[in-house]
């Protein structure tokens, strides 16, 4: 406790000396400004005189001095020994609250990080040829889980004020973009697996050939074998449920992202008084329906004319 009071006094002295320095700085800089203006022939206060002129000359300094004095008084009051304990308890309460609120998040974060590292290590491992059971979906799901639990909630914080609606759209755009990119990354990862598996098969075959002392004279032969194996791996991948699930997630998340992107673009276009794509769609729909109606009516008129002629 004594230590805290001493520290408090130290801080008080530090603040006092800093404010004294600052006072001098502002006084001197104001004085220099006046000198500079005088030498250049400029004098903004030519009509002012006496104390009023002084007030105008030093108004920045005086305003600043008043603010600093108030702050110093407040700090001194807070640093007074009889207030130190209350101040300390209050600070501890804030620290505890902060630690409590971030504690859960940190635990989740560490657990997810552990899972993610494990999954990433698995991605780096070789996979079996012509077998897609080992396609690792969990790494990408871990990242998405991490995003959903630890990042998405910050984007979903309610927006306030006049630009609330626009800020909401921007947050949603960031959110949908993150989700789409995560699915796209997973799709790209899946596309890399046939290459990895094919290279593994080829390495084994080439090793066997070299160990046998044979030499493949025509590289085309090796390429043909490689492309055939690669095609086989791709065929396995492209019809697998894992691939189709990821493809579907990519399509739906792309659709969601594009929708929000259009919202944001529309907001800008509206500001500039330019019709948006959606505005034009309404016009096009009306045109489409009108054309259809006209065609129907034309046919009916033609039929009636024929009847009349008959």
């Amino acid at each position, binding site marked *: 406790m004594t230590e805290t009071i001493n520290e408090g006094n130290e801080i008080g002295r530090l603040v006092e000396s800093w404010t004294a320095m600052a006072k001098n700085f502002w006084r001197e800089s104001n004085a220099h400004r006046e000198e500079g203006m005088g030498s250049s022939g400029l004098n903004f206060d030519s009509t002012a005189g006496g104390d009023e002129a002084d007030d105008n000359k030093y108004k920045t300094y005086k305003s600043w001095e008043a603010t600093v004095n108030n702050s110093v008084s407040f700090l001194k009051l807070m640093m007074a020994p009889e207030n130190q304990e209350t101040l300390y308890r209050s600070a501890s309460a804030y620290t505890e609250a902060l630690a409590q609120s971030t504690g859960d998040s940190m635990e989740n974060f560490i657990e997810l990080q552990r899972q993610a590292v494990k999954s990433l290590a698995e991605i780096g491992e070789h996979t079996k040829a012509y077998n897609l059971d080992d396609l690792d979906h969990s790494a990408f799901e871990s990242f998405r889980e991490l995003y959903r639990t630890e990042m998405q909630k910050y984007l979903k914080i309610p927006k306030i004020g006049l630009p609330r609606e626009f800020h909401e759209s921007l947050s949603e755009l960031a959110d949908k973009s993150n989700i789409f990119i995560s699915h796209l990354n997973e799709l790209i990862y899946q596309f890399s697996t046939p290459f990895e598996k094919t290279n593994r098969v080829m390495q084994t075959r080439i*090793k066997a050939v070299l160990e*046998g002392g044979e030499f493949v*004279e025509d590289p085309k032969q090796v390429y043909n074998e490689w492309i055939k194996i*690669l095609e086989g791996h791709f*065929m396995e991948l492209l019809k697998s449920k894992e691939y189709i699930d990821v493809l579907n997630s990519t399509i739906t998340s792309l659709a969601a992202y594009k929708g929000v992107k259009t919202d944001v673009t529309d907001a800008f276009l509206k500001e500039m008084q330019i019709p948006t794509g959606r505005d034009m*769609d309404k016009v096009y729909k009306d045109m489409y329906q009108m054309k259809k109606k006209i065609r129907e009516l034309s046919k009916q008129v033609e039929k009636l004319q024929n009847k009349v002629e008959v």
Partner: protein
Amino acid sequence: MNQAKIPVDLILKNIEVNRKSTQKKLRKATAILTSELETDISTTPYDIVYEEERVKLKHYRPEKVRCKTPLLVIYALINRETMLDLQPRRSVVESLLAQGVEIYMIDWGYPTRKDQFLTIGDHVNGFIANIVDFICEKKGITQLNILGICMGGVFSIIYSALHPHRVKNLVTTVTPSNFDTDKGLLNIWMKQTDAQILGDVYANMPGDIMNLGFLLLNPARLIIDKYVGFIQNIDDKNYVENFIRMEKWIFDSPDVPAATFKQFIDDLYKKNLLIESKLEIDGERVDLQNITMPVLNFYGRFDHLVPPEACSLLTSRIGSSDTEDICFDTGHIGIYVSSKCQREFAPKIADWLLARDN
């Protein structure tokens, strides 16, 4: 572990030989790539005889008409009809004209955002029906022959079922009618994903995204091996020209109107309504029993987009008794562009139509 016996001398000798041949090849390749290449596609002369919004009708005239009834070619909304006239001497259009068949071909154009609400019904009962009426009026006939290709084949089937009095003979090529099969990856993906939502998101389904999807059906061959093959043959001018023509065609992909794309996936890929005669277009049921005209049905044994299982059921579900199925040992595109099919495909169609041309 055995010690590898690496024949270093042989490897070094090979490197030297390859270095020389690669240098020679690169010099020749540079000369070819920087020279004038003939890579134009769709060079057979035609007239545009009808236009409706983005859709145009091409008219190809044979030197001598042998088949009195003209043939209307309905291509898919995916990629473009230029595939049927890829290059001289490798052109379905050229072969059919040589056989005396007068051709009308629909060019669907490039749908824009305003076309996103167009349904299958708008294509079949709108554009196609109007085009058929136009040709019939122009030629003073009541019926014509229809050749449908892939998705265009589906439109042809629907049109023939809804307007059977207008169709004299129907030819379907690589046309999916039965979607209840897991033989093709496209069938698996379309059934098990929500790909149809992309139509809403992009207003129309972007052609480039669809093309990417088609490349991913066989990435090893279509993204890697194809270009390795190109590099290997880069010193062959003829090969380079053909390759570039094909690249021009394959990456010329119009978007598909969102409403049509969604309907195609929901009603056909997911619910398989067409082959069950349960599909409804503009409130009318598409009853395959209404297809009583002669039907010739082509498909490819190695077609990875529309597998044989997706095509072969059609002739057994329609009302016609004059039907024929022909399965070529080729893939989805090979049926139109491979040399072997070129010799058999168009002549077979012409002969079959002539035999039914009164």
